[in-house]
């Protein structure tokens, strides 16, 4: 690498380390009593309080249960949309990915309007069944899990779909001609081959649930998880304790990450890199089955889009015009007029937009730079370029780890020696790699470029492709996260090799 490139790599690595490391360090320092002398008393206090342990335990089991529920919804949906052909499949397949486009807090509010005590659905059902009271209460762990499952099954859905498109049809055909029925093929061949994608989705769901705040905050009540516990401590003016809690949560997340990666180690990438044809979609032949599928499919899409529709509807209700009616009696654009005519109301909207734009710009810039440097460095290794080209998920963070590794005094040959293991790790956490449209560009400069390609595709196509590009965007970002994780792993593996 040229000296200029090396400087750039170092600079970038330092910047990324600051970006990730600095907040963690500050949190840790404050938990250790930065302000009034070093001490472990806040951790001792944490360890001594039963409610802290309860919150930690709840965070863990809520996250684990979210993973299970999200998988139970997302994986079957992926099979339905990837393996069968029925009218409306393409549009529905795109719509089904939409829950992920709902910001957490907004989603929770929509759920309140829908399924809360006086929500549309709750009251409709009470009315239908002639009940005096709401048939359920939207609170506690059940409500949290409902929201989590709703917003996070999309990870499983998208990752599994991507993996299913990549799956070589010959695998399942081989199983069939060797006498394995559908269930045995699914259990012994298809699902094990999907394992890397499922592991990626599980990791993301677990981490997102662990960090989830809106749902536990609004529905949790006395049911506290770590995130709400941290806020409660902060509100009680126990800042240092809150920091200690944050450190514990971060530690749990890291442990979770390591466990997931270990579990995933056994999975293998497809041998030889040869790829056959994608399994064909089976046309649902029987008419009534097709009809039922279509009805259920559109029904499902309706349910999934209800939060979005609710928000749109509620945004049209002028203040204090809606009291006991099931549906709001007056709908107009007053609220929008208010937002756009009063600068102090518009400010938050503009803030959100420009911050999102700035964050995207910085992320894309960083990602491209890191990917460029990573590519240049991976060319040096024997056969590295080709291998890297086959792993589009080789994301920005994972690549920029190069500079750090150089510092550790490892040369390219050694790097090559540990490559095999590295690659399987990246494969494992590389769910975006198979997504349509993202691949060719991603070959070159990492995931973020893939995102850019998706954007181009969106501009070229109509509504459907725009939905698709949204669908592509999300796991691309996910792979970005994941490759950050695998980057961490890479250097770990490497240390052992060296």
């Amino acid at each position, binding site marked *: 690498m040229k000296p200029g490139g090396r400087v750039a790599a170092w600079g970038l690595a330092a910047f990324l380390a600051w970006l990730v490391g600095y907040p963690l360090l500050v949190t840790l320092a404050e938990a250790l009593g930065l302000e009034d002398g070093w001490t472990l008393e806040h951790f001792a206090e944490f360890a001594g309080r039963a409610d802290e342990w309860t919150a930690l335990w709840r965070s863990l089991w809520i996250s684990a249960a979210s993973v299970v529920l999200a998988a139970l919804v997302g994986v079957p949906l992926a099979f339905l949309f990837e393996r069968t052909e029925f009218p409306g499949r393409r549009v529905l397949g795109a719509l089904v990915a939409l829950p992920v486009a709902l910001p957490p807090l907004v989603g929770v509010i929509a759920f309140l309007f829908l399924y809360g005590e006086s929500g549309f659905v709750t009251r409709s059902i009470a009315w239908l069944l002639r009940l005096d009271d709401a048939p359920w209460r939207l609170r506690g762990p059940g409500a949290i899990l409902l929201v989590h499952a709703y917003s996070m099954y999309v990870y499983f859905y998208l990752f599994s779909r991507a993996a299913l498109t990549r799956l*070589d049809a*010959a*695998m399942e*055909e*081989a*199983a*069939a*001609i*060797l*006498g*394995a*029925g559908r269930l*045995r093929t699914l259990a*012994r*061949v298809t699902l*094990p*081959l999907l*394992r890397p994608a499922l592991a990626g989705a599980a990791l993301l769901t677990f981490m997102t649930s662990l960090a989830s705040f809106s749902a536990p905050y609004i529905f949790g009540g006395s049911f506290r998880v770590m995130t709400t516990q941290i806020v409660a401590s902060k509100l009680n003016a126990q800042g240092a304790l809150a920091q200690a809690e944050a450190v514990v949560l971060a530690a749990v997340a890291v442990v979770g990450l390591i466990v997931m990666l270990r579990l995933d180690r056994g*999975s*293998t*990438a*497809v*041998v*030889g890199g*040869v*790829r*056959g044809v994608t399994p064909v979609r089976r046309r649902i032949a029987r008419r009534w089955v097709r009809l039922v599928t279509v009805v259920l499919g559109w029904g499902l899409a309706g349910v999934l889009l209800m939060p979005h529709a609710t928000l749109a509807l509620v945004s049209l209700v002028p203040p204090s015009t809606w009291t006991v009616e099931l549906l709001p009696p007056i709908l107009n654009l007053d609220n929008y007029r208010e937002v756009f005519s009063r600068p102090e109301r518009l400010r938050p909207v503009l803030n959100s937009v420009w911050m999102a734009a700035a964050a995207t710009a910085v992320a894309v810039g960083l990602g491209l730079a890191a990917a460029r440097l990573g590519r240049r460095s991976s060319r040096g290794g024997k056969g590295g370029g080709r291998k890297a080209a086959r792993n589009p998920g080789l994301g920005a963070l994972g690549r920029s780890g190069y500079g750090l590794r150089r510092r550790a005094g490892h040369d390219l040959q050694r790097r090559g020696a540990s490559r095999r293991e590295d690659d399987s790790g990246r494969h494992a956490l590389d769910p975006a790699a198979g997504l349509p449209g993202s691949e060719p560009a991603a070959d070159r400069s990492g995931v973020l470029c893939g995102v850019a390609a998706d954007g181009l595709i969106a501009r070229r196509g109509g509504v459907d492709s725009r939905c698709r590009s949204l669908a592509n965007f999300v796991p691309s970002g996910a792979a970005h996260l994941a490759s950050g994780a695998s980057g961490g792993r890479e250097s770990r593996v490497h240390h052992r090799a060296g």
Partner: protein
Amino acid sequence: MGPKCAGEGLTSFLSVDHLDKSFGDHRVLDGISLDVEGGEILVLLGPSGSGKTTLLRILAGFEAADAGSLWLAGSDITHQPPVGRNFGMVFQHYALFPHLTVGENVAFGLESRRLPRNEIERRVVESLDLVDLKGFERRRVGQISGGQQQRVALARALAPEPQVLLLDEPLSNLDPGLRERTRRELTDTLRAVGITAVWVTHEQEEAFAVGDKVAVLQRGKLEQIGTPEELYLEPQTPFVARFVGRASTLRGVAGSGGTIVLKPRGDENTDRDHQRTVEWQVSGSPDIESGSPVELLIRPEELTLVAKGEPRSLAGRVVETRFAGASSFVRVQLDTGGSVEVAAVAEVGRAVGVRATSADSGGPAGRVYRESREGGG
């Protein structure tokens, strides 16, 4: 309904009867009928797009035919799913399960048949032994070479003792240097087991080396089925003549009594170049009436070089030489247009005459066909 009924007039082990298959508007298979005897290796040979792979996939049960039927040992298996067919298959890219060990891959088909554990273990060892991979049970599929993977694929397919083995271009994924040896080992194994096999390839040499019978397919039609010798010596269609072995095409007009008159192009109406017109004795369809345009397909070894101007020879000039070990070939640009390949040695640029080798004895040269619209040579 096909002309054959169960158990009646059906002597072959595996029969394909009037099979049709289309993908959309595209006819992939068009009225294919062929028979395979028990223990025989049938090779499906054809260029890409000829339908050979589709035919194999219909045999496996992965695709359903639009019309026609399949018969195995007298029973109709047309609508039987692959799971119940008891066929084995070696896939082009082997399709080994990457998450299982070599032993688990081989055991997969045995477990599907719910055999007892010790029986499975015994047969896994036996099958791996058969393909010379003793002791590989615990290896991961990714840890072995391409040639070894191919043998694991064979062991996995053979372990459940299938009635028919299907092979989809089994050598195409190997290095050229490894291909011939693997081909020999593979055919030796198939013969040792005595299994009925259908082997798909686009390489004529491979087809001739392994096939008891070879079926040549083109554009979904069966051009000819026969032993390699039959295909080479008596090709029924110009396509077979060209596809199997090397052959040059000469255009002319059918003469009387099994002759062909080869004339310069565009000279059909004049006698000006009478001396350049050559009449050869040929074999081929006797029902071609005299005077109709025909093409003569003739192999390099059926032609010899003579001095320019010799009787019954076509004048030309050597434009290319090709040394191929035991034999050498030259390409001769004919004065009458077109070129032919001749098994001979000569330097480029020499003016020569080309004569059918058999012409000296008055025997027939090459095979004559009605001129086909697609032409070429």
